[in-house]
């Protein structure tokens, strides 16, 4: 009788243990998925909030860019690089000078803060610009560019040191099979895995248009729409690394609205 009772108790307790263990595993996956989603969103938020710092506020809009592709969107943020004391690294073509398209070295008001290897953006007073790489800083008032430009740039053209970050999803394969991940690409460097298990990245843009409630678009259609982006709506879904006993993954979705603080001057 005692053995029977004990057996029953063991069976019941074992069941509870197994159930508890499953719950713990589920909890663990939940935490993992939630944390993955949070981490991904945190980083995107952070970069979006900083997007546009030290960059031009008129002309071609370069602070944000994106691709709309259902639940696998892509977003690019650009910020100006700063010196150690946080001041922006930027300068202008001085009065009377011109940046020739083919030339290497050109004059600027100040080359302080620029260094070889930096990505830079030169902006014409007409609002259009292009990127180039700094290969040398010959003097306190000169920069040397690696690539030829498409045209000449007159006095007052702006020169900005640029940091570019692009977030997008991709899959990679390991011994468990295909795993989705969020990757981060900085400038022209190789993309690096940023958060594993992110399978959906859906981004929308709230514009300062027809407010309230304000238009929301999947992707601004042109520069004019980009420059009235009031808020970026980020929706990220993360899944657990492993499926449960039924083969289903546990998923967590985090949604947040981000106001890019640097898009327009204050």
């Amino acid at each position, binding site marked *: 009788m005692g053995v029977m009772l004990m057996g029953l108790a063991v069976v019941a307790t074992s069941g509870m243990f197994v159930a508890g263990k499953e719950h713990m595993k589920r909890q663990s996956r939940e935490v993992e998925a939630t944390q993955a989603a949070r981490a991904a969103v945190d980083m995107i938020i952070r970069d979006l909030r*900083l997007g546009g710092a030290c960059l031009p506020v008129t002309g071609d809009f370069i602070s944000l860019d994106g691709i709309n592709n259902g639940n696998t969107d892509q977003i690019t943020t650009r910020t100006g690089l700063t010196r150690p004391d946080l001041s922006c690294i930027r300068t202008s073509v001085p009065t009377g000078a011109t940046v020739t398209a083919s030339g290497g070295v050109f004059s600027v008001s100040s080359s302080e803060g620029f260094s070889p290897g930096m990505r830079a953006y030169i902006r014409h007073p007409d609002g259009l610009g292009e990127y180039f790489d700094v290969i040398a800083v010959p003097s306190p008032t000169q920069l040397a560019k690696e690539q030829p430009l498409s045209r000449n740039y007159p006095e007052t053209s*702006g020169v900005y040191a640029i940091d570019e970050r692009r977030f997008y999803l991709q899959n990679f394969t390991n011994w468990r099979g295909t795993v989705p991940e969020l990757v981060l690409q900085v400038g022209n460097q190789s993309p690096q895995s940023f958060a594993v298990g992110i399978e959906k990245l859906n981004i929308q843009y709230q514009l300062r248009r027809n407010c309230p409630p304000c238009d929301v678009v999947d992707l601004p259609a042109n520069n004019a729409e980009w420059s009235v982006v009031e808020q970026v709506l980020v929706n990220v879904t993360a899944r657990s690394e492993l499926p449960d006993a039924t083969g289903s993954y546990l998923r967590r979705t985090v949604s947040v609205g981000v106001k890019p603080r640097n898009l327009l001057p204050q």
Partner: protein
Amino acid sequence: MSMTRRNSPPLNERGMALIGVLVLSALLMSLAIALALAVRSDQQMRGAFGSSITGFYAAESGLNMGMGEYRNIFLEYNVPSGNDFNPRTLTVGNRTVTYKLSERAGNPQNIVIPSGELFSGLNAIQYRYIVNSTATNASGDVEAGVGAEFLVGYIPLFQFVAFYKNDLEILPGPNMTLNGRVHTNGKLYLSSSGNTLTIADNPAQGVYTVQVSAGQGVYRGRKDTTVCDGTVTIDMLEDKVAPFGDLDPKTLPCNGTTTRLVPQSELADWKGSIISNIGNIAIPEPDIILPPTSVSNGGTANPGVYWDKADLRIVAHPGVAGPALGGGPAGLMLIDVVTAAGVQDATKTTALRNFMMDGRWNEGELASKGPSRMRGTMPIFYTDVPNAASNCGPGVYSGACTHINRTNYTPNLPDRTGYTGNNANSGAYAEAMGPGFLGGAAVATFDGDYRRGGFYNHREKKWMLLLNINIRDLILWNKENGEPFFAHNDNTEGGLVIFATVAGPNSNSTNNNYGVRIFGSNDIPLTGGIGISADPTGVTVATDQAMYVIGDYNRGTVNGGVARQPASIIGDSINVMSSNYWRSGAAGCTDQRCRDGQSSLDLTGGRRTGANTWINAAFLGGVSNSAVGNYNGGLENYPRFHEDWSGTTLNYQGSFVSLGDTKHVNGAWCGTGGSNSSGCNIYNPPTRAWNFDPAFNNAANLPPLTPRFVYVQQVLFTEDFK
């Protein structure tokens, strides 16, 4: 016995239940511990996440508070010093937020604001500051930090083609093109009465960009009435349409026929060349042109910068008789030179009187000196108002009014030499005005009567009391006669600053009849000049009363002049009279109604006919505000006209700056055309060939004491979670 023994539990089964219970308990315990750890771990993660977020926002609040406090320092035209750089704290919930201002090395810098930023391309004196803010929790841990860089720029105002403190309206009748930047701290109204207003770049003239900005909204249409018409075209910051090298224009349409506020989302199509609601930027107050109260009851205890920094201060004192000039009549109005403290400078006053009496220099009889371009005309004189015997008064300029009869003045004005009849009696103009004027005879000496008479201002409905100064002759005579007034090459504050005022009983009146008029200054005879020297000297002429400029001013090398100089003209309001004003009109000028006397005639009839005129100088003056049903004339009427300019052109190159309403004249703009009996009888408009002076893009070419506005901009926001 054995049965009994068999019925007893075997010895080796004893304690199994206990063991089972212990095992189960252990399993349950481990489960509970694991669950507790998991929950605790999750809670900790959630808590840490929540704390960091809360801490971050607390730090951000400190940043915002700090930036607001520091911003106020700059907006009051100060820079931080001493305690301003000490850390400051505030409490947010149970967190302590510490924020601190730090200054970047190398402040300030003279820079050209890079393309792409607000006010790009402008010269600025820029300061850079960093604000850091951290949030510390109750345990003393720093949870989050944020930082921001902000720029403080002092930007010279004369780099705009138009810069207004109050609402700015640009509603030209004829086609009008503006090249350069336009800004108002108020609302901007853009329209055109059936024609086209164009705001565009002009690369050939060095104007590469366009910026139209408003502290408040941008409206398409009129302010005084809800009407939208004509065509308004403003260049976008885009060059994708041939011809290249020229910004692409885009029309700002009316929606129907009523005035409308253009939303920012629509303005975004211009990619930054039109910006609304940028907030109120700090600009100088109109009192920067006030003299001290010891000089004028229109002054202030804390005189403005133009008085303080002036190289020469000339004051006319209505009601105060000065000593007779040479052999001239006694009892004329005192005109003297005073110090910054408002006390007569005896030495310079004597020099001024010598200048006023130097007929030989004026006629060019002295080798290597002079001559005046207004030979025979006294270089400083005043325009008197008719006395009581003339039967002229405010609003009265015809009928019984005989204001231009020389005998109506006390003492009488002298005869006009060589003329008879009515002409001889035109005493107000008795001085021969030089060979170029009415064929008057040249004079080697003056009669000492430094009066004229009879300028009637139809807009103000008043006879005006004007202090007239030939700026060119003043500068040239000073140079050739030992520099008694100032060093000819003085470049403090960027060059020469000459302040002139009328300090009479009505100086403080909101509607007086005082003014300063500058003339005879086709060129400014200073060394070098724009395009000649790297940092030309330049001249600024300022008054706290109405300012009038007559004829070509600082035109440059044309007509034998020297290169144009950085120049500005500053007054309570700015009035422009054509180069024909003192010359023979189309209908001749053979009677007493010549020159200032023409102002009492109908606008029609040909004796108030203007002529093409060239002015190269920045203007800083007051502009009255429009109200519903009362249009102020718009930017196109910033300079006040007093002639029939039909078919003639005012060629203006400079900058129109208004720091607010006028203080001493309040005559309403009432339109154009008409006659004494009907219409306004004030003016007919010129063809407005008006442009920003691209030379002002170079800080070295800005006029002396160019006023600045303060511009504070956050350019960077950073965050740092711990």
